[in-house]
């Protein structure tokens, strides 16, 4: 196993883990988004509630969810170790720095963006996951199909300006994070090709726009049209 410890302790190995967990989270986001579109169905949340039940009871999903938690935690922890390692690589900074001339803002601020997303994640989990799975104090109703009515909770939460603003901030952060992170994950894996890399970059940009936009449509829809 010497090779493995060596790999994950190297700067490249750490980046590899960042990339793999990142791609895993990117995949998750799509699934999460597709499932959540049930909110727009106009059936007073019956489909949404059924989806929520399925997600929390299906044994396969259950296993995958632990992988997801692990993925998030790993992504965060490695990011933090890399952040400090990278900071220590330049103990004395520049007096005058014109970083704009050579790199994009988001690429230089992935840690900040990540922290914003993490903060948003806490709010998001506290609002729904905690309530639904661990009975955080909210009294769930039972809907017509006999499922706990998380839809009602979503509507209630998204009606508050705080939720709207915090979700929008979180999703803007996600947009920037993905804008750099999507292509970057491929680059780190070494998946670079003169023909396909432009495609990956375009796809990454499309993804970074569409996914956060999709998520943002939910609180916006609830807040303004519900």
């Amino acid at each position, binding site marked *: 196993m010497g*090779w493995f410890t*060596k*790999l994950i302790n*190297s*700067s*490249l*190995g*750490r*980046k*590899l883990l960042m990339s793999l967990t990142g791609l895993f989270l990117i995949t998750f986001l799509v699934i999460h988004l597709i499932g959540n579109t049930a909110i727009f169905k106009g059936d007073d949340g019956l489909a949404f509630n059924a989806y929520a039940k399925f997600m929390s009871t299906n044994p396969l999903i259950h296993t995958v969810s632990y992988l997801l938690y692990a993925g998030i935690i790993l992504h965060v922890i490695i990011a933090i170790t*890399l952040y400090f*390692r*990278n900071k*220590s*690589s*330049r*103990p*004395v*900074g*520049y*007096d*005058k*720095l*014109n*970083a704009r*001339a*050579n*790199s*994009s803002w988001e*690429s*230089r601020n*992935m840690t900040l963006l990540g922290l914003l997303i993490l903060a948003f994640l806490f709010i998001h989990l506290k609002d729904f996951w905690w309530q639904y799975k661990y009975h955080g104090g909210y009294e769930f109703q039972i809907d017509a199909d006999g499922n706990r009515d998380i839809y009602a909770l979503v509507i209630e939460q998204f009606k508050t300006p705080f939720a709207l603003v915090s979700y929008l901030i979180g999703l803007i952060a996600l947009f920037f994070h993905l804008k*750099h992170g999507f*292509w*970057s994950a491929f*680059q*780190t*894996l*070494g*998946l*670079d090709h*003169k023909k396909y*890399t432009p495609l990956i970059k375009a796809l990454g940009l499309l993804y970074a726009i569409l996914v956060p936009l999709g998520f943002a449509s939910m609180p916006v829809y609830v807040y303004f049209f519900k």
Partner: protein
Amino acid sequence: MEKERNYTLKIWRQPNAQSKGEFKTYEVKNISTGTSFLEMLDILNEELTLKGEDPVYFDHDCREGICGMCSLFINGRPHGPDEEVTVCQMHMRMFEDGSTITIEPWRARAFPVIKDLVVDRSAFDRIIQAGGFISVNTGVTTDANAILISKENADLAMDAAACIGCGACVAACKNASAMLFVSAKVSQLALLPQGQSERKRRALAMVEQMDKEGFGACTNTGACSAECPKGIDLSNIARLNREYFTASVS
């Protein structure tokens, strides 16, 4: 026709590695626009010397953009504002009359300051010593044309081999990462048939040495490539990643 201009220079002065260092401000006058940046510093140094003040120390040698010795961080960018040139190739017409020019040394834990603007880049040499070579002794008898190399690969190898080892990539990177430098050498040798037998060992050893020297990790900002005086491409970094991971898991 050339014009003459005046500048205020804000220069990092540090007597030796142990001392703290600070910025000092100097005025230079009547600098013709055709003067190179380093010649402008020569003029300042002549004046300082005649006044009995210690001249400003900076590394330089070939003054034609190929030796990689000059290494100044000018107005927030390595090698200054011009694209794909080293400091020595840049001329004062790039700088507006009356402006203030800030000059700092490369900043990285792996490049400690020796004096003023002179830094120690021997970490790069140690990375090459770790594996940036093909192990052949003098006295090869295989004819040079015995192994065919596609023009495409030879050109890609040459693109990577154009690296001058100046360290602008490290200076530009917010993490002081040396990935572009390391990847350029790994790429050059990985692209050539002669480099195949040591391919895995090379990638592993060079990355290990890079980490040991205290360079940061790559976050794909692309600053290195954007500031590289030889335009070394980011695809080399992807190739290094590929080389390293395949070497690690196989």
